[in-house]
């Protein structure tokens, strides 16, 4: 597999023959980080493995890891399409334009792009309701912080990240009106060294709960070392911080990948914008630390259940942004389309969104 992905990335497999009817469905994956990041890309790869396990011989998968967002991505996606893949998943926001561009040149190939908003006749998008996990994180962080300061290690100022910061703050404030949030942007999805620096910089400034929107377990280790608390991101990060780790919000892509592959096999696939969360089991809460107080543990489970059942919708009005404008009117819950465009901090966050 490794060798194959290497050959692919070198372009040696380009031009392989098109797929026959009885041939297995060829599925390609493009990852932004290494499979070994133990976060985002790792979980996508578990989704790929889950797909193989589900269909056995009926699918054949390849992946290319560590693909930079930009011109290189276009080259890699093109090669996957040329190599005869019938279905290609591109799994990072920055692959959006390259995916749409390549899709135009390969109308027979189906493309699925994670976290983006541009669709086409043969391009669908899919995204996780990560804010649901953030709401649970915010509630737990708000209850557990002793310094009333939550630290957020942010990657890039895109709607997904801004939306998640808003959710953490809103949820924390519900249970702890005095809570503050400190946000540090590291401008990377995956840079263990920088994530460690950011974690330490936050803890130096009074943060005692770390929430990360980056993919390496480095912030967990940093929190463990200094006796603070942390919440795992994308995958189960409990083993990196046995004491510090409160719980992980894990991504689970397998159900979606299986569903899409099945639709493509049966020729029923249509481009759509798919949102999956607690309800679809595409987001799960894992490894709640036994060392948490009983009321916090109970509240985590209760909040999870309320969101899962649809009873609690985090973005329900009235919500004001931090400039005083009403962004969600009373009685309205943001639609998926509106959620994809959140570009404001809620009232109470004193920072500015970097532009």
């Amino acid at each position, binding site marked *: 597999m490794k060798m194959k992905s290497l050959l692919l990335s070198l372009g040696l497999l380009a031009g392989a023959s098109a797929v026959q009817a009885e041939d297995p469905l060829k599925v390609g994956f493009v990852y932004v980080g290494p499979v*070994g990041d133990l976060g985002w890309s790792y979980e996508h790869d578990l989704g790929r493995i889950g797909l193989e396990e589900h269909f056995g011989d009926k699918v054949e998968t390849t992946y290319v890891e560590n693909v930079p967002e930009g011109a290189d991505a276009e080259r890699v996606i093109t090669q996957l399409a040329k190599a005869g893949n019938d279905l290609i998943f591109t799994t990072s926001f920055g692959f959006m334009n390259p995916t749409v561009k390549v899709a135009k040149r390969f109308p027979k190939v189906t493309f699925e792009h994670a976290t983006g908003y541009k669709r086409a006749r043969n391009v669908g998008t899919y995204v996780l309701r990560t804010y649901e996990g953030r709401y649970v994180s915010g509630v737990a962080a708000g209850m557990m912080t002793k310094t009333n300061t939550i630290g957020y290690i942010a990657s890039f100022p895109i709607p997904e990240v801004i939306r998640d910061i808003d959710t953490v703050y809103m949820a924390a404030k519900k249970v702890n009106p005095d809570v503050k949030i400190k946000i540090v*942007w*590291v401008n990377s999805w995956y840079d263990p060294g920088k994530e460690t620096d950011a974690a330490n910089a936050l803890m130096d400034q009074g943060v005692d709960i770390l929430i990360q929107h980056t993919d390496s377990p480095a912030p967990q280790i940093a929190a463990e070392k200094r006796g603070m608390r942390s919440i795992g991101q994308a995958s189960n990060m409990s083993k990196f911080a046995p004491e510090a780790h409160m719980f992980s919000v894990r991504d689970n892509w397998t159900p979606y990948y299986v569903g899409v592959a099945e639709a493509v096999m049966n020729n029923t696939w249509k481009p759509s914008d798919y949102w999956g969360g607690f309800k679809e089991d595409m987001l799960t809460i894992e490894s709640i630390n036994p060392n948490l107080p009983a009321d916090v543990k109970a509240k985590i489970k209760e909040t999870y259940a309320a969101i899962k059942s649809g009873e609690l919708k985090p973005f329900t009005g009235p919500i004001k942004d931090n400039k005083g404008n009403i962004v969600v009117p009373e009685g309205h819950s943001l639609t998926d389309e509106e959620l994809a465009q959140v570009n404001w901090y809620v009232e109470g966050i*004193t920072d500015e969104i970097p532009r």
Partner: protein
Amino acid sequence: MDADLITQILFAAIKTGTPLLFIALGEVICEKSGILNLGQEGMMLMGAVVGFLAAYTTGSMGLGVLAAMIMGSLMSLIFAVLVLQLGANQVATGLALTIFGTGLSAFVGSGVVGQTIQGFAPIDIPLLSEIPYLGEILFKHDILVYLSFAITIALYFVVNKTRIGLTLKAVGENPNAANAIGIKVLQVRYLAIMFGGAMAGIAGAYMSLVYTPMWVENMTSGRGWIALALVVFASWRIGRIMLGAYLFGLASIMHLVLQGLGWSISPNLLAMLPYVATVIVMVIISADHFKEKLLAPRSLGKPFDPRNMA
């Protein structure tokens, strides 16, 4: 900003600067012998992965560091043979070493991705660590940081005060003259390159055993390149390298600290700080009237083949 926060920031700057200090010290010795090795990143990654593997399997951190040093010097030996024995181009060979090391380390480390180890515990040096502020900043680190202090001081003396240092500089300034007076130029260069490799290995071990005690692909994220700039920045002086390493360390965390304090400056601009600092110092250096003294070793990057000697 209060005094405590400043102390903590400076403490973090030393931690961040330590891997830079290790590689830059190795590279400066290498360059003083007239060899430019651009393979720092590759040697460092191999050091990081092998150091982690050794520490993980044996449970001994000391063995991890030792293994990283040996691995680093083995990597540099490949470079040395190609460059010194076969007369290959130093720049191209160094770049190849970086690419080779990046790929090989990912391959070697694939089995231990996701494992963690305990890491070195910090050691408070008695008495010294009780000095207000200064003790907090300098003497509450782990053993590798203290090792970097010791190596810096030792190298300072060896390079500036001993015959070994003189020999090294002679080889780097004018290998033909050095050869004429009976110095074994290639032998000196071999040793200098391998010392550089061993230091890059420790720098890698610092990353995978102390800084983020785990192995992840490409975890050095460009520090090898920063260290190369640092050597120029410090105009090949040991003392300045130490200072520069901490300055670079500080610059690379400053943008994170300022954000936490709520400065509404674009983090992209703040992230440029280390590079802006480099440019500024380069300007200061080139404006210096004593330029002569600051120049690079005169034969840096040029091959030397004793067989061509008349």
